[in-house]
């Protein structure tokens, strides 16, 4: 059965980002219209019944998160949309905001209505300025058409949606760090509890949701929870965007159900491997998750199946690597990222990520000693589980997963005093997938 896209419908058509297009071709704002006739709690129940799980990385049930938002308080409530999208290998929210921004705007309005908020802030990473310009222009149009602002569609419901620009910090994607950054501070996480649902932005009850998560909401309201669950495996319903990059012929964002296997994503959707070289390993969910090997590719790309296979679906950023990739180099590349992005609040993460990077750089340069492998392992294990936010575990993951699956490569580097893969191991020039 062919899968019909619902999130990325028409995204390749000119002007698909406009309000006119959204209303005339995508049944735009019908979900909001319907939602405003329901009780807020009924929407939460519907989202719960749909089983929608957060698309930002953790896969937490969205309906439950909204239910936790403290309602019984005089304080205002807030919605924060997480558009920080900085997990290496992830670029799906980018597409949604750029080509289907009204779906997000509608999702924000419905989510605000459901949790009793009147203001939503879309926290967008500073580098997405071109996306922000589109989003802000379309928000203006939504105001002018009466889908945002005062007394929306005559319902008496008021809602403002603002875009807030970040300034370059991966850690701002962590939900409490996002809130701190929105409050005008460094993007450093808070101790949880209290969770944002109780005390978030300006110490008020707050829901933080990913862009893709919110984009699913109008569809659930419009088509119903049963429609949504039927799209995917049990507990993994709905449409899903997969970001495929690395050594594939057609890298891109692909929408599919979570029944789709990793192999189908790589071979059918992304066109298979460049130059038909053998696949060595993939990262299935953004740089923070463990590797999967070629014999695991028949795993369906769902939260639960990928977890059972020993990794995580995370942000669904698939990075595909062929046999020319050195796994020590891979870990070194990613630890350079984590070392740079650590917010510095906890010592194990701040110091440990730097140590790991230096050790890896030493081994990769052929100057590693046998004891370095134990040291890598020891430092990693002194980070995992000992930090304030999930960043710490994520930073240790590239080391632990490559050491577990490719320890022989580390040993060979140390033994031979050089990188042991064929000379072409690191792309000597860019490989343009699909460029004709």
């Amino acid at each position, binding site marked *: 059965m062919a899968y019909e896209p619902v999130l990325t419908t028409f995204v390749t058509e000119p002007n698909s980002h406009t309000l006119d297009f959204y209303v005339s071709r995508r049944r735009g704002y019908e979900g909001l219209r319907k939602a405003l006739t329901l009780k807020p709690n009924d929407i939460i129940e519907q989202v719960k019944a749909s089983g929608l799980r957060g698309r930002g990385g953790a896969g937490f049930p969205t309906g439950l998160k909204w239910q936790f938002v403290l309602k019984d308080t005089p304080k205002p409530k807030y919605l924060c949309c997480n558009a920080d*999208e900085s997990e290496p290998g992830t670029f799906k929210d980018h597409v949604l905001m750029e080509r289907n921004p009204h779906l997000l705007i509608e999702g924000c309005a419905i989510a605000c209505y459901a949790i009793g908020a009147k203001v939503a802030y879309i926290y967008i990473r500073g580098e997405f300025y071109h996306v922000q310009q589109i989003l802000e222009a379309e928000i203006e149009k939504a105001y002018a058409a009466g889908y945002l602002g005062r007394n929306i569609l005559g319902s008496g419901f008021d809602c403002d949606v603002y875009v807030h620009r970040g300034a370059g910090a991966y850690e701002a994607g962590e939900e409490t760090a996002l809130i701190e950054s929105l409050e005008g501070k460094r993007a450093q996480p808070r101790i949880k509890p209290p969770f944002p649902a109780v005390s978030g932005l300006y110490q008020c009850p707050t829901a933080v949701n990913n862009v893709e998560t919110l984009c699913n909401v109008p569809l659930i309201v419009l088509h119903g929870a049963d429609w949504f669950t039927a799209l995917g495996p049990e507990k993994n319903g709905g449409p899903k965007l997969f970001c495929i*990059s690395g050594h594939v012929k057609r890298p891109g964002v692909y929408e599919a159900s979570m029944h789709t296997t990793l192999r189908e994503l790589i071979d059918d959707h992304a066109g298979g491997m460049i130059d038909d070289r053998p696949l060595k390993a993939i990262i299935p969910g953004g740089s923070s998750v463990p590797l999967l090997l070629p014999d695991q590719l028949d795993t369906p790309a769902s939260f639960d199946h990928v977890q059972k296979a020993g990794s995580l679906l995370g942000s669904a950023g698939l990075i595909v690597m062929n046999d020319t990739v050195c796994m020590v180099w891979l870990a070194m590349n990613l630890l350079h990222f984590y070392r740079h992005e650590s917010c510095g609040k906890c010592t194990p993460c701040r110091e440990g990520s730097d140590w790991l990077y230096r050790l890896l750089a030493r081994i990769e340069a052929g100057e590693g000693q046998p004891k370095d492998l134990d040291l890598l392992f020891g430092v990693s294990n002194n980070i995992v589980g000992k930090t304030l936010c999930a960043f710490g575990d994520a930073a240790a993951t590239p080391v632990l997963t490559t050491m577990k699956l490719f320890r022989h490569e580390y040993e060979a580097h140390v033994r031979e005093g050089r990188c042991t893969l064929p000379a072409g191991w690191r792309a000597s020039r860019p490989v343009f997938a699909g460029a004709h």
Partner: protein
Amino acid sequence: MEYAPAAFHASTRALPEEGSPFAFTPENQAKFDANVARYPPEQRKSAILYALYLAQGQQGYLTRAAMRHVALQIGCTAAEVEDVVSYYTMFFTKPVGRYVLNVCRTLSCALVGAERVTEALGDALGIKPGETDPTGTFTLIEVECLGACDRAPVVMVNDGWQERLSPEQVSQFLEALRARGEAALSGCHLRREKQAVGSRQSAVGSGQPAVGGD
């Protein structure tokens, strides 16, 4: 007890440059006032990043004078402003070239040869990452994942994007930037609608690597 000034100032903190006196232009002041109204009145600090972007846009980089002005606007201390400035990577406390070339170096870009692009840019300009060329036109920086991994290697130039830059295209790319400024950039692929030909549920078509669009 003696307070030796030398020891007292032994902090390793690098003090940003004082710079010339700074105040927002009337346009920027108006923009700031409009932005700060998006937040509750007692939460002016939420507009700090916006204010810093305005100041940086006005002056090219952030000086102590600019940070003090931002502090005044927000109603916080200059130390709080500096705390924020020193955290986020998109703020500069030293002069940068007219075009800041931010080459992505994280995994997906690296897998397809971003390092070669950085090298080629550095060679063409005679500088290393982190440096500005003698004419003050280009600053080369290596940055972490920009979130467009399907069009690697990606280079962010100021607020614009150049995608799929190959080392061979580098000199042509720099020439185009010199001649036409940011208009020479390919932009984000999705905006080039005629190229966005979907292939099998793909939101993103495959296209030519292009310098300056086509």
